[in-house]
């Protein structure tokens, strides 16, 4: 079972709101990712957690705040977003390792975010 579950599927928020996106996987993966995707574009990496520690931050603005409470959960806290932050936010996970098994990244269905 290669399933990454994201909630909510759709979110509309004002520029002064605080909201969170949630992601869950039960595949035993210890690397988890947040990506942002605009229409008709490839996804852009935002953050990577390995063993619940932030290992990659692709210079993402501080209005996006990731959190990894445990090995199965990943959150993305949103505050004071701009309309240009409207996009599909994808969570993903993979095994951790430098060998072949650590290389396959599995994606969730995404959360559609609209900032008004």
């Amino acid at each position, binding site marked *: 079972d290669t399933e990454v579950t994201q909630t909510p599927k759709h979110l509309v928020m004002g520029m002064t709101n605080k909201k969170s996106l949630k992601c869950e996987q039960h595949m035993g993966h210890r690397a988890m990712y947040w990506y942002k995707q605009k229409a008709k574009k490839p996804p852009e990496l935002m953050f990577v957690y390995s063993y619940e520690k932030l290992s990659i931050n692709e210079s993402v603005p501080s209005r996006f705040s990731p959190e990894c409470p445990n090995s199965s959960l990943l959150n993305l806290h949103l505050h004071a977003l701009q309309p240009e932050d409207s996009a*599909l936010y*994808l969570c993903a996970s993979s095994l951790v390792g430098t060998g072949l098994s650590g*290389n396959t990244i599995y994606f969730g269905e995404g959360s559609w975010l609209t900032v008004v």
Partner: protein
Amino acid sequence: AQSVTQPDIHITVSEGASLELRCNYSYGATPYLFWYVQSPGQGLQLLLKYFSGDTLVQGIKGFEAEFKRSQSSFNLRKPSVHWSDAAEYFCAVSYAGNNRKLIWGLGTSLAVNP
């Protein structure tokens, strides 16, 4: 910089016709190669991957891809396209020692005529 090129932005085929989507990556040792598909309004689904071994790999939904190191290519094929294959297809590559980061092509949008 390492890169992935998908030369075809948009392809239209008739249902039942064969399909080949092209993907080229910039030279690098030990590439790990992937094809993902994204149906409208959906997330990314892994179609197939190549790490090593047999250069012809089989994936889900009847897709296959062939790795050609001499051409730095990893083209995706399907012998008979179904209307439900209409989607965006992304080729991606990662490398040993930096396998957390996928390098993506810009995608190929596939339309299927009835």
